[in-house]
């Protein structure tokens, strides 16, 4: 058996449904006017400071979505870059968006052009500033490092999914004295960003960025729904620890939680009156 369909593991499917419900209910709450709180994220507050510094120095800003394939991570990265571009357009600061994925590059071109249009400065948009370098990891890394060094960028924003090339970008930016803000879902690259960047956005703070920057009710509501789902996970973990401590890890209630055949084993035990 494999988890090809919900029927292989209805419990997981129900959890997905619950998370979706939590998100949608809170989006509705936000749209109906509920005041929702989001805590301060220092890295995101520093975006404007970084752009200001670039403008003063007259050196470009680089935006790197990494080697992310086109998906939710890339969309989130481009949303952030669109916000940054709108800020940049106000000051006519030069920018470069360097992509390692051709699909992301194609969407980024449109997104950046839209950002300049929305900021009222379509004249500033230069398609050559949004570049596809290579989809080979280290060819991309060397291209980005070379550009950062040659153009002596003043601010470097790295948002998306990164691998081994993350430290090459971050350390090169550090060498030229750029202010660097990184956000990634890649757990293994977080230490490198923390060591080499000024601010690092970790884990689901990355997904909170669009809500934080725009303060749109829909996005804030979604964030609250995510937090409720996380609370459920925490309570399930706690419940599982207590149940496993009392009943043992072979108990049907424990096997229910995602093990292959767990659902069937659980119902069998219920119908047979508690036996395994």
């Amino acid at each position: 058996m494999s988890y090809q369909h919900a029927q292989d593991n209805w419990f997981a499917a129900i959890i997905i449904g619950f998370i979706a419900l939590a998100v949608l209910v809170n989006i509705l709450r936000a749209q109906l006017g509920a005041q929702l709180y989001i805590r301060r994220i220092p890295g995101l507050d520093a975006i404007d400071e970084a752009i200001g510094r670039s403008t003063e120095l007259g050196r470009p800003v680089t935006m790197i979505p990494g080697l992310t394939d086109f998906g939710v991570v890339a969309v989130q990265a481009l949303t952030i870059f669109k916000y940054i571009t709108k800020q940049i357009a106000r000051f006519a600061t030069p920018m470069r968006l360097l992509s390692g994925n051709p699909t992301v590059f194609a969407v980024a071109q449109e997104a950046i052009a839209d950002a300049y249009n929305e900021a009222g400065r379509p004249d500033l948009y230069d398609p050559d500033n949004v570049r596809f370098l290579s989809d080979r990891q280290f060819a991309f890394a060397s291209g980005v490092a070379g550009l950062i060094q040659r153009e002596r960028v003043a601010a470097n924003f790295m948002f998306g999914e990164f691998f081994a090339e993350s430290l090459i970008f971050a350390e090169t930016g550090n060498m030229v004295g750029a202010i660097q803000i990184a956000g990634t879902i890649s757990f293994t690259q977080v230490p490198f960003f923390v060591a080499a960047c000024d601010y690092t956005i970790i884990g689901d703070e990355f997904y909170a960025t669009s809500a934080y920057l725009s303060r749109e009710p829909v996005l804030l509501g979604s964030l609250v729904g995510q937090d409720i789902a996380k609370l459920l996970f925490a309570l399930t973990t706690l419940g599982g620890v207590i149940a496993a401590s009392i009943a043992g890890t072979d108990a049907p209630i424990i096997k229910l939680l995602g093990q292959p055949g767990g659902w069937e084993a659980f119902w069998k035990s219920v119908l047979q009156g508690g036996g395994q």
Partner: protein
Amino acid sequence: MLSVDRRWLYLILFVNIVIFLLAPLRMPASISPPVQKFYDEIEKLQPGDLVMISSNWSASTLAENQPQLEAVITHLMRKQVRFTIISIEAQSRDISYRLAERVTKEKGYQYGEQWAHFGFVPNLAVAIKGMVTDLPNTIKQDVRGTAVAELPVVQGVKSLSEYKMIIDVTPTGSVPVWISYSPKNVKILYCPTSVMAAEAYTYLDSGQIKGMITGAKGAQEYEQLLGITGLGAPFANTISFSHLLIIAFILLGNFAMLMNRLQARREA
């Protein structure tokens, strides 16, 4: 000391690496639990069992993944196990094929009869789902252009669920995809680079992967268990002394910072 030009650091590290790579000094490794579990799982295989190796590394991670793959293939051949190799990275297709050809030729393992290479598949999740339902029609042909249905090594095999084990040799962290989509009766073993190993401990802990060889050091431990001489040992020894150098410089840097602070306090 605090504002030392980083190029001096690079030079010192370079000299350190060259010296210990060339030096004949070899230290035995202490076998870590994940590597021991990896070895034990392969020891449980019976002759004729079928194993899928997913080899997704390219030249950049050759130092870590090549010793792993060589040792794994050697162990599988020792157990007389059939294996097939698949790659989701185009460069890896050539590298893993050539490596497997060289290693299997040395031991007299026959291509097509005892092992095969399924070539490059662009999308891993789709490929796994397809292999679970209909392997010959998903892969269609091997790297030499032979139809998979005609290969003796997978004669009669319709699904990935008929495999006993999947071994993922990769720098990309693709093991969650294998865990999500592969049949639950097929065990998964993992051979990541050292950087990617940190995120695999959760899967090891929960039993979703049964064993793990981490980078060159893990390869050295595995080679030691197999009693073979490979590239893992010299690389792991070089890494040892590089780590020692980094620690020394961290302590030196902190000492310099402390001295600076004391000086500043005295002057104040």
